[in-house]
């Protein structure tokens, strides 16, 4: 039993993931679904096929602890939930799935993309009996993703992204001129929500580090100061919790440049660590779509070591929300020991510190801080 369980961890067999498909392939999957349903329905032993959806419950999440690689991740295993037309609990959801599939099919046919809000309105008008809230639409979309195993983007739904990139990087989208990300201003270059486009963008870089920044403002500061001139690096931010496109982009970077360490600069608080962990391990919430984008992110700061750099008055007491996040983090099996220690220190001291607190040493201190940390190899 034990052996079998561990076997699972090292194979990709038992992971469920959503592919990024070009429109015609996504359409083909929908068509196969229709055909399968019809076949069984009109067979000699007629039945209405159940929809097997990847279970998106926490109980179906597994941890892959990298032993052979440095990358650990969280993924959904192959346990299913079943949506059945004849089950009173799931009947409506069953119909919703088909409604969403139909709508996405039309959108894909038109070669368009919609926002989830537009999708909501379309469905609200088309099938008001089934969709009365955005939430129902979002859930059904997730169901379709879990059924067809293709990403939401592949279904013709636009993803908004807050990701920005700047620094020693050049991006060339197909058919366009290359963009030098060191010259695109302090606002940085926006990471596209178009995953296909991201996948086809040519990335070149002479950077030696990728620095992941939690906050937009810090990103802006570092870029304005052109810190990448001193530390050959690329800055990436998702302005908080990462979206799929930003994770996808970071993952592509890590594949393209496997030797660049990815260093995360986050607040010294549980939310900061949670953001780091989302980049590092993925999340069940992104379910099928994103486990493969886990990256070997290292924690450069802020950390407990840095507290002596910060004036006492800049330490703010932990809020209840922080403690909640900390608790939840600690309960995660994947969290490594030295991260746990940092968390415990936060809880022990009851304090949190923002990256901005380092500004007491001057606005140009951040760059020095990062450089020092890199030189001393102080990342975990």
């Amino acid at each position, binding site marked *: 039993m034990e052996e079998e369980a561990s076997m699972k961890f090292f194979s990709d067999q*038992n992971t469920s993931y959503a592919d990024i498909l070009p429109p015609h392939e996504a*359409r083909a999957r*929908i*068509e196969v679904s*229709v*055909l399968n*349903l*019809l*076949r069984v329905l*009109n067979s000699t032993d007629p*039945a*209405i*096929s*159940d*929809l*097997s*959806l990847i*279970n*998106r419950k*926490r109980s179906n999440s597994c941890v892959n602890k990298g032993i052979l690689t440095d990358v650990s991740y*969280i993924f959904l*295993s192959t*346990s*299913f*939930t*079943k949506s*059945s037309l*004849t*089950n*009173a*609990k*799931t*009947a*409506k959801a*069953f*119909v919703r799935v*088909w*409604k969403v599939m*139909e709508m996405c*099919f039309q959108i894909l*046919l038109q070669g368009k993309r919609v926002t989830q809000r537009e999708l909501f309105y379309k469905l609200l008008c088309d099938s008001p*009996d089934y969709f009365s809230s955005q939430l129902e639409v*979002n*859930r059904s979309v997730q169901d379709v993703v879990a059924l067809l195993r293709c990403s939401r983007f592949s279904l013709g739904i636009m*993803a908004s992204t807050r990701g920005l990139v700047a620094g020693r990087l050049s991006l060339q989208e197909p058919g366009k001129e290359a963009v030098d990300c060191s010259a695109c201003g302090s606002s940085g270059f926006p990471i596209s929500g178009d995953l296909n486009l991201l996948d086809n963008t040519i990335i070149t870089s002479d950077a030696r580090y990728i620095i992941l920044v939690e906050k937009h403002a810090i990103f802006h500061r570092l870029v304005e100061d052109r810190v990448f001139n001193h530390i050959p690096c690329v800055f990436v931010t998702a302005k*908080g*919790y990462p*979206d*799929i496109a930003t994770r996808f982009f970071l993952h592509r970077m890590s594949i393209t440049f496997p030797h660049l360490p990815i260093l995360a600069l986050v607040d010294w608080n549980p939310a900061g660590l*949670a*953001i780091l*962990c*989302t980049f590092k*391990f993925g*999340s*069940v*919430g992104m*379910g099928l779509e994103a486990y493969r984008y886990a990256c070997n992110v290292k924690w450069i700061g802020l950390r407990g070591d840095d507290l002596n750099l910060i004036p006492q008055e800049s330490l703010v007491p932990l809020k209840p929300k922080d403690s909640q996040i900390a608790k939840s*983090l600690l309960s*995660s099996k994947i969290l490594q020991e030295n991260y746990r220690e940092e968390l415990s220190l936060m809880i022990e001291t009851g304090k949190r510190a923002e990256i901005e607190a380092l500004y007491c040493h001057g606005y140009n201190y951040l760059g020095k801080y990062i450089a020092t940390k890199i030189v001393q190899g102080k990342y975990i």
Partner: protein
Amino acid sequence: MEISDPVPKLLLQLISSAFQRCRLSEDLCRLSLLLHHQSTGNDPPITSISIADTGIGCNLVEFQDLRYPRELNGPKIWDGLLSVKTTCFSDDEVFCYHINLDEYISNKRIKRQPSQPKNGAKFSGTEVSLTVFGSMDALVAPIISFFQKMLVLQLPNVTMDLVVKQGDSPSTQNQYVFVVNADKTPCFTASNLERLKSGLEDYVLRHGNCLDIMCEQCFSHREHLKVGSGIACPEENRKRPGRTMEVVIVISDLLETTRHCSRSCEGKTEVLYFDNFSPSPIPQVALSALKKIDWKSYGLILASVNDQEGHVFLEWENFPSYVQIQIALHWYHNKYPTRQKTEPGINLVKKGIKSALDDLKTKHEGFLLSSHARKICSYVPDLARSLAGLIFSSTDMDFQGDCLSVLGFQPQEVEREAVEDYIQRKIVTVIGMNESKPQEAAPLLFFEAGSETQYFDDEEIESEYYSSFLLE
């Protein structure tokens, strides 16, 4: 003074016996009932009654169980004397008896009278006659009703008639003939159940056999009737076979135009009960069974069961009044006559009824669905529309062709509506089938070797896109 209740009851017993004698005959038989009101001069008036049949001849044992129908308070209306003449096919003479029902000592009851010669004629038959005081007005209706019900069994070899005479003038004579409509009915070889089905259909179409022909004001087509039947045999039949509970249910939509036909039951359901080929008051056990059926699983909500002296009506809460349900139960022993009277068990009755309901469901998709299934069915048009939409909006002609051929359509002849309709009907059928069949897991849309599979519920992780690691 009218002839009061006890007498009709006795009469129905006598008629029933006569009917059985006809039934068991292999020839065409006739059962004639004569009511003769000799009003002239007599006071109280005298009614003489004669029940004559051309059946197999009677066995005196039949009269053993008859009891004098006693009025507790009231004048004596009858001397208790039955005059019986009977002969079997093989007999040479017609035997005559006087049977005094008012006599308690049984061996004094029957007094043999001089026989009548048959003079070599080959025939069989019985005539029972009696004379009572009082008018016969209260007698006619129950007897007619009895005959009408009798017809439901559709025994093809028995013709029944009733003659009611007032005095001696032929102008004051009414004759009622009850005969099975030969061309519409199953042949002699049909089973009892087949006959019952056909009989109940006729019964409905003729407004409880009140009419000679189908009421076309209420029913435009015989085909609009939905008929289901079921048979249930007791467990012990294995040892002593023969006893059977047969159930027929007819559900009919009244025509829109005559929904308020005065003869309809206003949405009430009449339950006819036959005990050994004879209309009979419904026994308590069947009444209980009717109450205990899980009607809800057939989408019906039983409001009440009204038992009006053996005439049972079910009332529904959720059924439109223009839909009429008619139920007939028949409990009999194949080896008739048997003196031993039996009653079906409650589960047997339930089983019979359910089997008839299931039969209906099977034959008519989307019919008699449980409220659960009906709710699901309400989603089906939408689902079918989406599926048809997916098929027809596809630009991939191969896919479209595949779908249509899977559904059995010829690509060239196809209209979207027809496909949508077909899918809809198919799905509804499956839903109905799922209901009656014990649930067996439906196949998955994609064949996957999933680990555990469970029905999903709302506990799943909220599908926030920008969700964090913490949701793990």
